[in-house]
């Protein structure tokens, strides 16, 4: 059973929205956003990915099994990253030779 496809008009609107978000990401590099810069950029990138997956990959109208597979991927990536960081961020860092340059930032 083919998934229902959006109309050409809605496809073009989605595409225009994606390009506008891309322009926002590129322009944000030149705006004085300070520490909010990465958050603005990641929010815009995430919005593009959401538009892509929900509307053009039809996740919005997919079966429950497909949605579970998609969200399980993100969930387990999050869990694996959390477990890895639990190790990496809580043990002392052994300096590699290139880190031992005079004045190099101290390991956290």
């Amino acid at each position, binding site marked *: *059973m*083919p*998934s229902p*496809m*959006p109309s*050409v008009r809605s*496809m*073009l609107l989605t*595409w225009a929205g*994606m*390009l506008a978000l*891309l322009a926002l*990401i*590129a322009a*944000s*590099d*030149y*705006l*004085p*956003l300070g520490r909010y*810069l*990465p958050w603005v*950029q*990641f929010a*815009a*990138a995430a919005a*593009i*990915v959401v538009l*892509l*997956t929900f509307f*053009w*990959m039809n996740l919005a109208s*997919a*079966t429950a*099994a*497909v949605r579970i*597979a*998609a969200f*399980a*991927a*993100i969930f*387990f*990536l999050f869990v*694996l*990253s959390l477990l*890895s*960081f639990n190790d*990496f*961020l809580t043990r002392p*860092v052994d300096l*590699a030779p*290139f*880190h031992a*340059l*005079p*004045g*190099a*930032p101290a*390991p*956290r």
Partner: protein
Amino acid sequence: MSTPDAQLGIPPAAQLAAEQPPAKQFGTRSNQDEATEFGMWVFLATELMFFGALLLGYAYGRHLDPAGFAEASRHTDLVIGTANTAILLCSALTMSLAIRAAQRLERGALMSFLAVSALLGLLFLALKGYEYHDDIDEGLVPWADFRITGIHRGAAAMFYFLYYALTALHALHLCIAIIVVLVYLVRLRGAAVAPFRQQITVAALYWHFVDGMWVLLYTLIYVASPRS
């Protein structure tokens, strides 16, 4: 623009689709289509894990020395990176239009949109190759004569190692996607659209995954530091 199957002497599409029996392990054609789509999503989940290991490395490196990653990011070519992202978003549109044409059994439109998608993919690869050439010329290869010096040299080297690994892995995926599209273009010559409808829809999922992954890479690599 499109040539209906009937004009090629091919039976009406709906009839042809109805005549296609499902594989023996499926009760109906609909079951088979759902299983195909589900299988592709599970495959894409494993692909996300594949990229995930490198993305984790990136997050760790950026956490260790954010200033070093920011300095290295300023050496990337924002214009080419942005143009390439726009090209892939355009290819995502043409691929979606190709799926629409496939579901409406418009073979002319389908073949045109698939061809445009493949060309946009090739344009992306050409620009990426040009960018690699520039990077090498500018001494931005961490395992060769690396140009960035100073206290952030180590982090910058780690950034560029991840840059090459992530973008090359992405380019490999895009090559595979382009080959898949070209294969369908060849197989569709003089053939009915109906038997390929679900296959093309599933192939487009892979194409969109490659597009989405690039948007994330673009944000991590090209705009990781303010240029103002």
